[in-house]
């Protein structure tokens, strides 16, 4: 399926007949999807529908689950991410991730941001300073933490921690950002800030976001994909999905009749 509204943008990630099993349970069933570059794609659906599994498969974070088995293909810029020549750490550097619960490391704000670049071999103090400031600015949190760079990141508020995590993900200069319900643990004001930030990030990054909040999907996303019991039911431009869905189940879900 294809998000019709964004056909002017090139496809950056595509999946073909993607299936994921956890032992005997099939969490994703033949999902084929094309995600356009520099856009926001929302994945919606009731809990257990496979949307998080789908997200975590795109940068192979699902490899960490021992009982997970994957078939089908995922292409990132035309490259099959499951082929043996694919370096997983390199893939994840390009496809970053922000998690549901803000998870800054128990270190200083500065060290949190510098972690990624340092891992990838940047040692120069000046360069790191530069990356830290730029990443924090891009995540719209620089003004709030510029005087707290040496303080432990766990002392920040939940909303600040989540933006810090976004900054940390940006510091390795990814191409795609996967976000797994990034605002579900936050209050409405922090949520608004993060949503504004996501809209800004669209300029330079491709964003794929899992959300339980239909309003959020409607507010920020360009394309929306609706999952149910491991099936991709419907995928199209957000306007269309939310105004004239073609599948009855999509309509039931977005109007709150189940899920």
């Amino acid at each position, binding site marked *: 399926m294809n998000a019709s509204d964004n056909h002017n943008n090139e496809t950056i990630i595509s999946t073909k007949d993607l299936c994921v099993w956890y032992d005997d349970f099939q969490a994703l069933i033949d999902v084929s999807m094309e995600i356009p570059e520099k856009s926001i794609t929302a994945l919606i659906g009731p809990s257990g529908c496979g949307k998080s599994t789908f997200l975590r498969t795109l940068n192979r974070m699902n490899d960490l689950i021992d009982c997970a088995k994957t078939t089908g293909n995922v292409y990132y810029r035309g490259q099959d991410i499951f082929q043996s020549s694919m370096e997983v750490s390199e893939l994840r550097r390009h496809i970053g991730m922000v998690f549901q619960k803000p*998870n800054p490391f128990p270190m200083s704000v500065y060290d949190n941001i510098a*972690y990624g670049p340092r891992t990838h071999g940047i040692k120069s103090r000046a360069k790191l300073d530069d990356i830290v400031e730029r990443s924090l600015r891009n995540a719209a949190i620089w003004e709030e933490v510029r005087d707290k760079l040496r303080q432990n990141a766990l002392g920040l508020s939940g909303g600040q921690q989540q933006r810090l995590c976004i900054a940390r993900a940006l510091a390795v200069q990814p191409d795609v950002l996967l976000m797994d319900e990034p605002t579900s643990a936050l209050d409405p004001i922090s949520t608004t800030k993060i949503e504004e930030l996501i809209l800004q990030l669209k300029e330079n990054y491709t964003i794929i976001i899992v959300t339980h909040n239909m309003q959020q999907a409607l507010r920020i996303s360009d394309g929306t994909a609706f999952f149910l019991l491991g099936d991709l039911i419907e995928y199209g431009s957000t306007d269309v999905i939310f105004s004239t869905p073609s599948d009855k189940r999509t309509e039931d879900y977005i109007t709150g009749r189940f899920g």
Partner: protein
Amino acid sequence: MTRKKEKTVQENIRRKRVERIIHGIFLMLGLITVGCVLLITIYLVISGIPAMRTIGLKEFLFGQKWASTAAEPKFGILPFILTSIYGTAGAIVLGVPVGFFAAVYIAKIAKGKIKWLLQSAVGMLAGVPSVVYGLVGMMVLVPGIRKLFKVPDGASLLASIIVLAIMILPSIIKVSVTALESVPPEYEEASLAMGATPIETYFRVSVPSARSGIAAAVVLGVGRAIGEAMAVMMVAGNAPNMPTLFESVRFLTTAVASEMSYSSGLQRQALFSIALVLYFFIMLINAALNFFLKRGNVKQS
């Protein structure tokens, strides 16, 4: 109606009383532990002080010669103190790196059967009685050192250090593994999601997050090493020399254990003073342990 109410009130009073009695019993059982510690402390202080007074604190702690049964007895325990410190330090230097990397491997890398095998082995190592460590050391290590280094007697500080290093491994590994396993998986996920490799993640995120637990593990190892008597008695040779690596040495613990059975008078009192010094070291180590554990808790909250 009122009757029923009265009954409930009485029932409530009865239940409260039972609660209070049970509470009292538990408190008493708890106080028994405190009482034991207090009793030991008081007993050691009372019986340890006189000899220090007679001999003189400086003479006792810093005297380099111990000749308790000589015609003109000397009671300097510096050799024992230094042996205990060197022996423990040596065991830590040898044991901590091995234990630390083993713990990282068990907690983070090993899977399935290998993990099970390693964990069972560590558990069994913890359960081996110290006299068995001593016995194996005596039969294998002591002759081995004699042949390898061509020294007249293998019973030495080196043999003790090796035995102690092996003995402290289980405590170091177990506590470190627990600390490493309780690192929130979200930290590791975040690191992996930025393109760090698993090994980078373990050493740059997991280990720093678990550092207070790992520090506690090391301190626990120090405590175990400094308090061990039986195993070292069997491999140290027990001559009251100032410690050198290949010579027979005597630890604080073995000094007490080896002479207690036939001691009398000032000699016996001096042995109690040695125990008091040892007790003081253990207290220091416990304080350090509490410090590290507390710091870990504060950080997590």
